[in-house]
């Protein structure tokens, strides 16, 4: 099922007694989610991603704009008539019911012709449980399950009524690190197997990057960028997106463009074309550095961390926005540092320029 958001806006009345200013949680969103894809809504807390999810499932009514599932306008429909399955952040499994009763619950709500027979309900519940691999745990109560198992039950409960859209609010945030890796693969697999258009919300860019077909990066109620994870990573439209994606995060410097040269401090680090002389913000991905004996960017070396596959060179630069600059280089290449100085050349494709005032991307051609 294709999902279309048109000019979607949600404003909340101000809680603050003094200002009473409206809070715009979602500001004129328009985008289209293609059928059968896994979409990650990504952003820091308070960016409106959960609000967007609640608008999609119908728990909140939009202030403006429309929502379409396929060709149906569902904007005015209450949640129960939208055919959405929702996995809540804390799973919201009914603690007094067994796993089986939890999964059966949505089916038992159906009325009239839609209501399946008892045996059909059971077989559908069994099927959903099998899909998420909890069919052994049907008689347990949620309190007797681990976090990951509860998560699966919640997914099974959302899937059992065969929703048109599956929504997940921070599906992995309550799991420990190891389980998180495992579960995100699991979500990917379940989504592929069922082919249900799935939207999930996360603040963790790793999570979004690793399993989404498409990510929507949001900040302060506005869409920053939409695209395939790798494309967004390789081609951020502004400083926010560049900073938000990537671990370790991008290194940000104050720089300037002067006569087709990009300067950081006193060092001209790159010859570039197509940018007028101005002060800029420079972002360099950690993997964009090349450690060279006579590299053009001179930094003070703070340390070298060897992490098996990679070597992480930690350095400092006076023009850096953060106290440390982190470069990741392959462990094969020899590390040559001397006299407490680390010198780098940079890969032109891994370096982004942004306007100082608007933080919008400045595109350039490297020579």
């Amino acid at each position, binding site marked *: 099922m294709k999902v279309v958001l048109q000019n979607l806006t949600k404003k909340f009345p101000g809680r603050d007694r003094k200002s009473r200013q409206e809070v715009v949680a979602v500001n004129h969103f328009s985008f289209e989610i293609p059928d059968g894809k896994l979409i990650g809504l990504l952003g820091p807390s308070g960016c409106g991603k959960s609000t967007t999810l609640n608008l999609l499932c119908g728990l909140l009514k939009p202030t403006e704009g429309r929502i379409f599932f396929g060709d149906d306008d569902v904007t005015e429909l209450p949640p129960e008539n939208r055919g959405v399955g929702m996995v809540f952040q804390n799973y919201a499994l*009914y603690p007094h019911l067994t796993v089986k009763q939890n999964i059966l619950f949505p089916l038992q709500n159906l009325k009239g012709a839609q209501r399946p027979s008892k045996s059909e309900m059971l077989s559908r519940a069994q099927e959903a449980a099998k899909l998420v691999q909890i069919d052994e745990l049907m008689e347990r109560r949620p309190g007797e399950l681990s976090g990951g198992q509860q998560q699966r039950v919640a997914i099974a*409960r959302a899937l059992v009524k065969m929703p048109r859209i599956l929504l997940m609010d921070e599906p992995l945030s309550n799991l420990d690190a190891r389980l998180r890796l495992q579960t995100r693969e699991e979500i990917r697999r379940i989504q592929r197997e069922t082919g249900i258009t799935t939207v999930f919300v996360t603040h963790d860019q790793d999570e979004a990057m690793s399993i989404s077909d498409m990510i929507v990066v949001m900040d302060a109620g506005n869409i920053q960028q939409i695209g395939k994870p790798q494309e967004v990573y390789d081609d951020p439209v502004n400083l926010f997106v560049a900073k938000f994606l990537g671990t370790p995060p991008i290194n940000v410097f104050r720089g300037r463009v002067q006569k087709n040269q990009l300067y950081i401090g006193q060092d001209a680090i790159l010859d570039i074309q197509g940018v007028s002389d101005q002060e800029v913000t420079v972002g360099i991905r950690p993997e964009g550095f090349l450690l060279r004996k006579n590299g053009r960017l001179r930094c003070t070396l703070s340390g070298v961390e060897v992490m098996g596959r990679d070597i992480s060179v930690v350095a400092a630069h006076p023009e850096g926005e953060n106290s440390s600059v982190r470069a990741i280089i392959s462990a094969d290449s020899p590390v040559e540092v001397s006299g407490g100085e680390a010198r780098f050349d940079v890969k032109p494709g891994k370096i982004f320029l942004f306007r100082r005032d608007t933080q919008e991307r400045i595109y350039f051609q490297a020579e």
Partner: protein
Amino acid sequence: MEKRSMKSWLYLLPAILFLAVFMVYPLIDVFIYSTEEGYNFASQTYYGVGPYNYSYVLHDPYFLMALKNTFILVVITVPLSTILALLISTGLNSIRPLKELFQTVYFLPYVTNTLAVGLVFMILFKKTAYTDGFVNLILNWFGHSSIDFIDGPYWAKMFVLCLYTVWVVMPFKILILTSALASVNQEYYNAARVDGTSRFRIFMRITLPMISPTLVYLIITGFIGAFKAYSDAVALFGTDLNAAEMNTIVGYVYDMLYGNSGGYPSYASAAAIILFAIVLTITCINLLVSRKHVHYF
């Protein structure tokens, strides 16, 4: 190990002493009183030990009247007040505007003195030389003749007593239930809504199980409280409850000790022990029944 257990006994000692002196000793004493036959208050002597006091009390028409009244009161007021409180608190929980105002209004009876409430009921129900009471005015309005609720037929008096009891015990239940309802995680309701659960089903399958521990607590304490009813009847019908046919078991115990027919601690003790046995039995039944239906999380 030995030392540690000695220490914990030492810490428990004040509480144990207090309970022993003020709870256990009186209880045993009451039981002993209840078995002393022909106790003479003046000479503090008795003839022998046996079950005669129980037999006397159980054959005393006043006690049987008190027993009947108490049971009627319990059977009517406990379920009625609990269900009403549940409905009101559910309502309170789902409204937004004026919620605090209504909560305060519903809680007012709790902070009002029993006798003051009794006065209000007098105005509502009592016949005087000047007026038949507010309720009778309304009855007259609808063409019904006046009923004497305070000195009239048994059912009218019982009606007033039950109404009064329900009215007095409800605020506390509403208060407790409102907070229990508010503590149910909103996410369960959201989940149920997304799944298209009807309001009735949400209430029966989610809300009730979630607040079941509170509900059971209220039912058990409600039973115990209703069995111990006395002051409510006094507030409405005065101290001569036997004459008004409105006596309760606790009222009977009091009368046997201090009332017009007072000076019979043996009978009073026997009645008190009977009440104790009844309350204990009912509470055990409550606990047994609730074990199946209560969910602790």
